[in-house]
């Protein structure tokens, strides 16, 4: 299912889309595939695969740690594409989130081509702003990959408009000024940001990320956003589990709780 179809379907069901994030290759390639399929089966509408990177400046301690583990275990860019292939073949809608340098190194057009071939529908770029994205925009058009750029509470209306004009699929609204990671309470800046986005483009689906960790928070965000993006809390299920079976069970349970949350708007 494309991102547009996923958001349209959720809208027709009067609920939000649940986007669950997991780093590729964490802790190993096969285990990360198993985790992502479990998240999909337990109710994540979209699997956001994060490409592990040595210098993830937008990420808090949980994703940093998971990325470090994946890299220490030798995960490569081509493994990430293999993982996307496996997870999309299992029926999940997959988007990739990656810092820019690994794509630049791979070759921008070649990456868009191989990403599409692997079955991903979109790419989220946390450190690529539209101002620097001419090459990516052309490659994404050529290979029909949706582009998700980020907007933040600090973004001016002019920048929100520029970003929306270059997004396709959905826009990623960072709920607060900070890095990824679950917070005790949902940011109060998020509803205002979503309102400002809708005032500029009422059609573009808005996914809200940063700080959501449980079903109640998912429901709170689902009340005003088209999509709820959860990363660190899901990753922690695996990171903190004493053994693998418990980790997977906790991951399924939290995915199901979040999926229930986005239906409780």
């Amino acid at each position, binding site marked *: 299912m494309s991102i547009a179809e996923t958001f349209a379907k959720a809208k027709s069901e009067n609920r939000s889309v649940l986007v669950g994030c997991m780093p590729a290759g964490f802790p190993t390639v096969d285990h990360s595939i198993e985790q992502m399929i479990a998240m999909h089966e337990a109710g994540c509408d979209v699997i956001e695969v994060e490409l592990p990177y040595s210098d993830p400046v*937008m990420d808090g301690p949980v994703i940093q740690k998971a990325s470090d583990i994946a890299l220490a275990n030798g995960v490569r*860019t081509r493994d990430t594409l293999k993982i996307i292939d496996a997870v999309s073949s299992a029926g999940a809608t997959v988007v990739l989130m990656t810092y820019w340098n690994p794509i630049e190194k791979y070759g921008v057009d070649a990456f868009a081509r191989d990403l599409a071939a692997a079955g991903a529908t979109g790419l989220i770029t946390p450190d690529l702003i539209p101002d620097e994205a001419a090459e990516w925009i052309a490659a994404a058009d050529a290979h029909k990959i949706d582009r998700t750029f*980020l907007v933040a509470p*600090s973004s001016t209306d002019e920048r929100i408009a520029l970003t929306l004009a270059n997004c396709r699929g959905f826009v990623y609204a960072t709920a607060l000024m900070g890095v990824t990671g679950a917070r005790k309470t949902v940011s109060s800046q998020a509803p205002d940001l979503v309102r400002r986005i809708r005032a500029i483009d009422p059609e573009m689906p808005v996914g809200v990320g940063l700080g959501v960790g449980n079903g109640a928070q998912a429901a709170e965000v689902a009340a005003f956003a088209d999509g709820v993006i959860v990363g660190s809390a899901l990753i922690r299920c695996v990171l903190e589990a004493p053994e693998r079976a418990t980790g997977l069970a906790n991951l399924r349970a939290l995915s199901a709780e979040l999926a229930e949350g986005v239906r409780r708007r």
Partner: protein
Amino acid sequence: MPDLAGHFGRYGGRFVPEALVKALDELDAAYRSAKVDPEFQATFQDLLLNYAGTPSLLYRATRLSEKLGAEILLKREDLNHTGAHKVRNVLGQALLAKRMGKPRVIAETGAGQHGVASATAAALLDLECVVYMGETDTQRQALNVARMRMLGATVIPVTNGSRTLKDALNEALRDWVSTVDTTHYLLGTAAGPHPFPELVRDFVGGIGVEARAQCLEQIGRLPDAVAACVGGGSNAIGIFHAFVPDEGVRLYGFEAGGDGVETGRHAASITGGSVGVLHGNRTYLLQDEDGQTIESHSISAGLDYPGVGPEHAWLNDSGRAVYEPVTDSEAMAAFQLLCRTEGIIPAIESSHALAGAAKIVPRLREELGRTPTIVINLSGRGDKDVHTAGAYFGILDQNETVVPGENT
């Protein structure tokens, strides 16, 4: 250079989370207005003159000249307050922070020199200061940690990634994303997202302006070459910039070759790296086949960084400046040579410039058919390096270990 979006040819730009764009735009606007504000410039110049101790001397190093077979002029940035060129940058940026009404500054530091300079400027201008420093570096440079704390700064050891400068920079960026309303990121080198490369270059640009004027005054002509060490590249761009239009003046940047570029253990981004994006700008960097950053290695903590400022990348590609690696052992030989010929203990960073200059003398002599004149940027003093150098040369008594682990 750069263009309005901070590009030096294909290099530079802004590769940052959108959350930082507004702060960078505000910084850019504040800098543009400060640049043409006589009051700001007068305050900055007054601090440079009466507090930092600039203009620094241009010193004719007679005995070193004899040894190297060239006329060597040393730009004595080591005599500045806090012991390096970095004081120019921190004073400029701290004044900008005041101008923007931001009461807090954060900084990253490797060896601790930029951290100490930032803490100094923050104390002087009454700003809160938080310094991020890799845990490995806090152990290697315990004295600088103490200096920063004496000056009232908070030092936060960074325990993720490789626990060195690049991770300290990541952590400072993470802090900044959360605190941009109240905080200025006092970036320590002429790299990072626009407008930092341009802004830092301009704040340290006095080095080259002074050196150029001092040359004309002292020897009645411009030098044949200017040499500087290059890590992130702020001291080098600071001395190069004023000479770029002087086509007869060759510009040489010497990178940290560590154990030798061929060994893979080095910090030579231009001569041993490839083009990519790191810490907010497109430039040369050390990376693997997948674009993951590779850890750098150098005996000099101040050059131990896997990237380089974008203007150097551009000067390299355009051919205006030439970049070459200098190994740890070449740098340490030059360190010792300057100690013994001139009674000046240089920073190990600056020793790379001395060693590189020594290497180009025969080439220049052949090319020019006469004794070449070379201005070397002596970017910092070696007090902070006494233990590293002492251990390197084996002249520390075992009982004299001041910093744990330094002799091992």
